[in-house]
């Protein structure tokens, strides 16, 4: 695998200039739509934090300003990001309960998939409409949905088949590694297979006395262990692609390389018994999972935030940090050592029989540009304005400069130049998508936590292989049943 050394110079200014020119050229071409009126509140998450990030927040303000000049009867109020730590969900839940949420609001796509139409407006109908703000000739101008890559649309589609948000950007992940530590341990950041990789990680642990691979697994909730888990499942079930996918979705998305199981496919595979924890493939899954747990920091279960793992890496206590595009800035600014980017090894027949000879990328829509419209707004006079503003925001000349100035995520709307962030991550981005998503995004969020708890029991020796498999099977069945109760697919019992 190619290694991209870090510390890239960022060519922000020239990019901005290109966008500015592009915008200046397109501006007059857009007809003034005076029908749109009303007042909305827009929450852009990290894209609008005027006190902490004045640079890109100014662009967000400019985008809103331009819109209001185009539509003099419309008022767009940007809501600065909520400094809430882990209480964002409390904030949003109470707002939704009282019909007081902003008109355009950020939330994680898997949270939207949980509540679906009770909180959010389906945008399907609007995605079929033309988005006039997108320049002619750019995908999306005739049909808004064309502006988004199929894998984004596929992943963010809710279990009931609707889209409750648009995802304007995306995260990619990679492994940041400490060059000096690798040299000292005599380890090359390039591995032929999993066995070689884990052996090298053990070498780092034993010779340097530091932690090898930075990932963590708290008792509940999201963690980078989720990424690993989805990879191991994807790898052992790789030969079952065709069995697991449903025809009705294959029509929509013929490109297998980018495809991830959606909730219905997942639940149906469990229901049909194709996906079973008693399948021999799961022996490999358990073995790989356990081997992975052994190269993690000793307190991987006691760490609760990715920031703490990054702190270990930047404090030179950890050789590899598995992080995302959004970490690029902090690591560039704060690392006092030379670092590089690499990725996990492929799984080959040396690792287990029938291995796919590759590794998948971990990337996804869990970024800052995920916006939806609450049901309360859909029932108000401001709905047209909210949809229109979402279309405006998602036009490449508006979103592109904003995303590239922040530089933490990869803009996913057609027509945006990809900023310098992706350049570092290109090797990973070129890989196939994983078949399984994060545990919390497979069936229900509760199922994801349950899966974590079972695997913790296995890693800590509280349950053996057979007991673990029985628990995993039960968890799968419960998760599928819970989803069936909520969505009532036609095949549900």
């Amino acid at each position, binding site marked *: 695998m190619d290694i991209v050394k870090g510390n890239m110079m960022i060519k922000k200014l020239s990019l901005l200039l290109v966008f500015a020119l592009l915008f200046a050229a397109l501006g007059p071409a857009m007809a003034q739509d005076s029908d749109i009126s009303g007042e909305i509140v827009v929450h852009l998450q*990290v894209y609008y*934090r005027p*006190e*902490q990030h004045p640079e890109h927040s100014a662009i967000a303000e400019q985008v809103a300003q331009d819109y209001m000049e185009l539509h003099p009867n419309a008022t767009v109020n940007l*809501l*600065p*990001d*909520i*400094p*809430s*730590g882990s*209480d964002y969900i*409390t*904030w949003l*839940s*109470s*707002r939704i*309960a*009282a*019909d*007081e949420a902003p008109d355009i609001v950020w939330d994680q796509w898997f949270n939207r998939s949980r509540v679906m139409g009770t909180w959010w407006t389906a945008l399907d109908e609007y995605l079929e409409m033309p988005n006039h703000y997108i320049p002619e000739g750019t995908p999306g101008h005739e049909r808004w949905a064309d502006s988004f890559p199929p894998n984004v649309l596929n992943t963010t589609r809710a279990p009931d088949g609707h889209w409750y948000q648009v995802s304007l950007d995306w995260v990619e992940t990679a492994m940041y590694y400490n060059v000096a530590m690798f040299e000292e341990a005599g380890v090359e950041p390039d591995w032929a297979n999993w066995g070689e990789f884990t052996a090298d990680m053990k070498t780092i642990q034993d010779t340097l006395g530091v932690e090898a691979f930075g990932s963590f697994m708290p008792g509940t909730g999201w963690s980078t262990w989720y990424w690993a888990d989805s990879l191991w499942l994807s790898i052992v079930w790789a030969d079952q692609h065709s069995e697991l996918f449903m025809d009705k979705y294959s029509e929509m998305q013929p490109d297998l390389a980018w495809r991830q199981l959606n909730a219905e496919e997942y639940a149906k595979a469990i229901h049909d018994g194709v996906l079973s924890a008693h399948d021999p493939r799961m022996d490999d899954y358990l073995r790989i999972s356990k081997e992975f747990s052994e190269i993690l920091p000793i307190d991987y279960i006691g760490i609760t935030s990715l*920031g703490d793992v990054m*702190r270990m890496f*930047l*404090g*030179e206590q950890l050789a590899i940090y598995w992080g995302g595009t*959004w*970490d690029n*800035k*902090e690591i560039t*600014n*704060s*690392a*006092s050592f030379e670092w590089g980017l690499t990725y996990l090894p492929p799984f080959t027949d040396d690792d287990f029989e029938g291995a796919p000879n590759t590794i998948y990328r971990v990337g996804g829509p869990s970024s*800052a540009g995920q916006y939806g419209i609450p049901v309360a707004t859909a029932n108000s006079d401001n709905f047209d304005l909210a949809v229109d503003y979402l279309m405006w925001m998602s036009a490449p000349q508006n979103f592109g400069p904003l995303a590239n100035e922040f530089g*933490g995520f990869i803009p996913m709307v057609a027509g945006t130049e990809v900023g310098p962030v992706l350049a570092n991550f290109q090797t990973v981005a070129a890989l196939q998508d994983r078949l399984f998503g994060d545990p919390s995004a497979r069936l229900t969020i509760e199922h994801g936590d349950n899966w974590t708890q079972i695997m913790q029991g296995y890693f800590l020796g509280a349950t053996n292989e057979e007991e673990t498999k029985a628990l995993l099977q039960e968890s799968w069945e419960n998760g599928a049943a819970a989803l069936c109760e909520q969505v009532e697919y036609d095949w549900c019992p």
Partner: protein
Amino acid sequence: MSRSKAWRRDWPLMLILLILAIITYVPFVFTVINSFKINAQFFQQFWLPTLPLHPENYVRAWPAMGKAILNSFTYSIPTLVLTLVISGLAGYAFARYRFPGRNILFIAILALIMIPGILLVIPMFSVIIALDWGDTLQGVVLPWVSVEIVFGTFLMRTFFETLPQEYFEAARLDGANEFTLLFRIAVPLAIPALSTLAILDLLFSWNDIIWPLVAIFDSDRLPVSIGVLSFAGQYGTDYGVTFASYVIASLPLIIIFAFTSRRFMDGLSGGLSI
């Protein structure tokens, strides 16, 4: 007892107290030390100071925190005043008068301590919205007061019950009515107890995160408890500035504590008990 004799008697106690105090102050010192670091320094050294110092963290934290401190006072002062008045009145009524249902009522109020706060967030917010008090001063303050007067009533009742009845009887014989008794006799005597309650109330309203987060819509009016989180985020935290924010946020409380600690203790000296 002579000074040296006292010292000979006391030094083992003082030594133990000193050790306890040092451990107690670790988080405090740690916060101050780290408020002078930039991220790169913080990642390298968690516990000890590193050079150069970065006092500019305070400059960066100040605009947001200055505003947040003002905001916090606008919520905390009305909360404080109302809590004192309402708890004082209720505590006095329970301590001084016997009326039908007194004990039942008192138990019903005290039982509210048992309710997990997080359980009531959504129902309480629904009440606020039904009253159309979203994003208003009273929408923040009155629910806070309602939390605080539960313990406040208990504390004030306990205090008023320790006051000798003779004070009131003498005044009554002089023709004082119930309001005169309350304002001329009970309130002046209750100042220590009220200041105890005031401090506890201030600590609570200054540090509560969830309720202001839910009840305040305009981010320019968020209090310090949320302001300190401004520089901590999902996509990277500015640790030095965050710690500087914590230091700034606790300064007003420390100053108030330093000036009122004597009264605060006097309020407890009546003995708080069940």
